[in-house]
């Protein structure tokens, strides 16, 4: 990116603290590279926290298990620091891409904001850090898109994805529990709105928020493969050619587990699984190097070529 463009952001664009999470730095680099580029095309600069730690991975439900929320809250303190250091200007929101990170930090934040005693204890434990003031808001990238408006997303499209039939898949972590949901938990639409703005044919299936199997994927591949078979199978039956999601774990279970699915069901037809941001970057016409399809298990290239959507 050119300096001139950087300068433009500081003047007019939105600079917002961004929390990547471990998966986006390892197995889901394609999610991050496409998201950062897509955001930039919308005039949004995702400013990575200069220092950050794991989100905590899973929100702990135990009432007396405050230590497991320390990880989340520490990241929120970094947002305060960024404001103080002038890396962002009065921006108290922190954007996440990974649904799991979003869910964990959103809920930890809600919990401590509702309980002054919790904040005090955590601050006390973290005496090397500045105190958490409770003012940071954890938001998901999709919420940010909704806020700037799908009209703006649509205007950023250089090459619409007309003809590409995509089924949005939400999973659980951006919908449940209700207080952490970014959308109607029963009838979410946000992914569909984005896909529509990109010009795709949106295929809605009743399986779009069925659990992907989550961490069972470590111990029980078969169970997860079974869920993937159902979710992908219904999408296929409804006419979809691909899936779009925002969760690296969902993506892994739906994408990589197709290996096990295919072993069990010889008639199974592989289906590409996209991060929504890969489709955005594609439609926005940014350098296709950011798409990083090398990290997708099922190769989406043939499908995209079929629709003449790739540069080469």
């Amino acid at each position, binding site marked *: 990116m050119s300096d001139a463009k950087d300068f433009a952001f500081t003047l007019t664009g939105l600079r917002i603290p961004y929390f990547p999470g*471990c998966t986006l*730095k*390892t197995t889901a680099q394609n999610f991050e590279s496409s998201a950062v580029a897509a955001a930039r095309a919308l005039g949004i600069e995702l400013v990575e926290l200069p*220092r*950050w*730690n*794991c989100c*905590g991975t899973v929100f702990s439900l135990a009432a007396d298990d405050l*230590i*497991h929320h*320390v*990880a989340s809250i*520490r990241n929120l303190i970094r947002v305060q620091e960024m404001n103080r250091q002038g890396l962002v200007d009065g921006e108290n929101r922190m954007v996440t891409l990974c649904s799991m990170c979003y869910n964990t930090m959103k809920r930890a934040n809600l919990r401590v904001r509702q309980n002054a005693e919790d904040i005090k204890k955590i601050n006390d*434990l*973290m005496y*090397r*850090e500045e105190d958490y003031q409770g003012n940071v808001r954890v938001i998901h990238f999709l919420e940010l898109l909704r806020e700037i408006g799908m009209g703006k997303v649509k205007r950023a499209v250089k090459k619409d994805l007309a003809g590409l039939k995509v089924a949005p898949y939400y999973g659980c972590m951006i919908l449940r529990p209700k207080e952490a949901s970014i959308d109607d938990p029963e009838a979410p639409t946000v992914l569909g709105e984005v896909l529509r703005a990109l010009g795709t044919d949106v295929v809605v299936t009743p399986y779009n928020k069925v659990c992907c199997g989550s961490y069972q994927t470590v111990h029980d591949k078969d169970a997860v493969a079974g869920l993937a078979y159902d979710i992908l199978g219904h999408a296929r039956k409804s006419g979809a050619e691909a899936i779009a999601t925002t969760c690296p774990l969902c993506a892994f279970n739906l994408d990589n587990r197709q290996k096990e699915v295919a072993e069990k069901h010889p008639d199974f037809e592989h289906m590409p699984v996209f991060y929504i941001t890969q489709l955005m970057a594609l439609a926005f016409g940014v350098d296709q190097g950011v798409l990083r399809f090398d990290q997708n298990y099922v190769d989406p290239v043939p499908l995209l070529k079929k629709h003449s959507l790739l540069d080469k």
Partner: protein
Amino acid sequence: MEEIKNPVMDIIAEANRSATSGIDAKDIKDWITISIMGRAYKVPADLTILAAMEYAGYKFVRGVGCRQGFCGACATVFRKKGEYKLQTGMACGTRAEDGMHLAQIPFTPAEKASYDLTKEPYSASVLIKYYPEVARCVSCNTCTKACPQDLEVMDYVQAALRGDFELLATDSFDCIQCGLCALRCPSEIVQYHVAQLGRRLYGYYGLGVPEHLKKRVEEIEKGRYAKALDTVIAFSNDELRKQYVGRDIEPEQ
């Protein structure tokens, strides 16, 4: 026959006496009291914990090494008078203070994994393979609080988890492997072993061998400098002096 002593040398030796032999009480003006493993001792003020313990009569065979903050042998835990915080430091670089309670921790039991760098991929998975407990980090930052080098230990553990080898190497570089982080970690991670493996992976895969070095080693192996060395090695003492005095000195950068 005994030679004449040099007064300058004697003055220097006398002035340095407190750094070269046991301290004599008659040289001391200010005193403090510290508690070494529960027993109080009156010791000179302005000493390191190490020197104060020696003054008290301890002759170390453990818990001492370089005495200058490089080796990590003299890890010590202490509480200052009236403070609840358990503090950590190296006995050789921490000033003994009046009312301080302390104990040394001369050894950290921790297993180091065996590996061959060249057979591992350059990825976070290597660190998790050999030290799976690293994934148990809850980001409590206790390790950072314990580090006598003031390193951001938790940050480098987090960097390890996400395969950011450069950050891991940079943040952990000044580690003296004293073990205090590992002793304080509630997740029982051995941070300094993880960092050692990570730094070596970064050195091997991330930095590699620079071209000019490879080239020079090849040249030497092919004998490019053999003749020049045969020549200088055969020089007479006078010729060597002449060559040495006449050589040009490269300027500073």
